[in-house]
């Protein structure tokens, strides 16, 4: 037991690693701030594409969405980071993370937005159009507000997944929270810095996870 505490809950080592981890926390927040809006925008475009009346566009978008849902995010990230340099294009770790997550998140958010838009009855947009609203106006003022409300739990739960996903950036040595903690771990031979990071994730995400469960149960019953 003592050994367990020493190895996982060593306060002294946690304190020593704290400044590094705080720095990493800033990077984690920065990645989220870039990746979440990018994913939401890409997802909205993907949803509109996959519902388009133009068949070639629709099938292309659906195929792309499925392909990017089939690739594990880490595989996508490593391909972009380690594969693209072979074409002569060398990306910074941050750019690689942003591109990989943009592709992956757009596919997932896209499916959620699509389900949301489909849940709004066709009568709604027909009524809106017949009152003289243009297509984009109908989408923005009538369809999307209802669509987003209908899939809010899924959007929230996917956003939790995206925040968790940022930890993969550590694999391409981008100095986010987990990367900094793992550095501290490799210097001290002690897992406490990573446990500290786990604690930070828990504090950040636990309320959201609770909220998702609450929403899901309300919808199911």
């Amino acid at each position, binding site marked *: 037991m003592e050994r367990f505490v020493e190895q996982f809950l060593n306060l002294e080592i946690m304190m020593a690693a704290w400044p590094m981890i705080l720095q990493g926390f800033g990077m984690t927040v920065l990645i989220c701030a870039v990746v979440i809006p990018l994913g939401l925008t890409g997802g909205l475009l993907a949803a509109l594409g996959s519902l388009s009346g133009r068949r070639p566009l629709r099938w292309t978008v659906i195929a792309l969405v499925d392909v990017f849902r089939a*690739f594990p995010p880490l595989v996508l990230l*490593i391909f972009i980071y380690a594969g693209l340099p072979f074409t002569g294009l060398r990306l910074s770790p941050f750019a690689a993370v942003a591109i990989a997550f943009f592709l992956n998140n757009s596919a997932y958010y896209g499916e959620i937005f699509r389900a949301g838009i489909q*849940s709004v009855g066709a009568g709604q947009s027909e009524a809106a159009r017949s009152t003289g609203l243009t297509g984009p106006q109908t989408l923005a003022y009538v369809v999307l507000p209802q669509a987003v409300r*209908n899939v809010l739990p899924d959007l929230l739960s996917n956003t939790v997944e995206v925040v968790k996903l940022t930890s993969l950036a550590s694999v391409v040595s981008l100095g986010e929270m987990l990367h900094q903690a793992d550095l501290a771990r490799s210097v001290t*031979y*002690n897992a406490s810095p990573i446990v500290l990071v786990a604690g930070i994730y828990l504090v950040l995400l636990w309320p959201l996870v609770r909220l998702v469960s609450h929403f899901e149960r309300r919808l199911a019953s």
Partner: protein
Amino acid sequence: MTQWERFLETFFNAEVLARYAPSILHGVWVTIELSLLIVVVGIGVGTALACVRALRRPWLTAPIVVFADVFRALPPLVLILIAFFGLPNAGVFLSAFLVLFLVLTLVLAAFAEEIVWAGITSVPKGQWEAARSTGLTFGQTLGSVVLPQAIRLAIPPLTNRAIAITKMTALGTVIGVPDILNQATTAQSFSGNASPLMLAAVAYLLLFLPLVILSRWLETRFAWRRA
């Protein structure tokens, strides 16, 4: 050499492909083996926990809720690193394969518990009461009346979650599990050629694209919610 030829030689080099195909194929087996184990055990444990929770005993519910919340809130990579690098110093020695299996199974169990539980709570209370009053025991009611309906509701979200988590077997690369990604990156650095990565990409698509398409079909088949 034209640019096209150079491109082919970098990304689709027949000689490199032939040399590393066996090791990537081995990775494919490791990935499949792990995925199946994780899905079977994870969904089994998650469903069992949801059934225990259906007993509605606070002292049983509390630890299950805490477990499910913690494993849904923490990034799997964080858990993998803690288990792989921390446990040996505390005197517990697990192989990388076992660590990856345990972490992903627990994560899937946590999600499965929440999904199945949402299904169980969606069955109206009247059905419990009706079943119990016909003389069925608690276990019979749960097993023959409630669970079949709950599982039906749970199938689409459970499939999506199971796919998402089996894809995470790629995280094993970080601790040296010889899965597809690990074999491919090793081959890429040995050969200085991107072809092994392309082969791995094809392997992932062959494995997961059918599952993604299946989940798309299941969603329309068992429409989860219709607004």
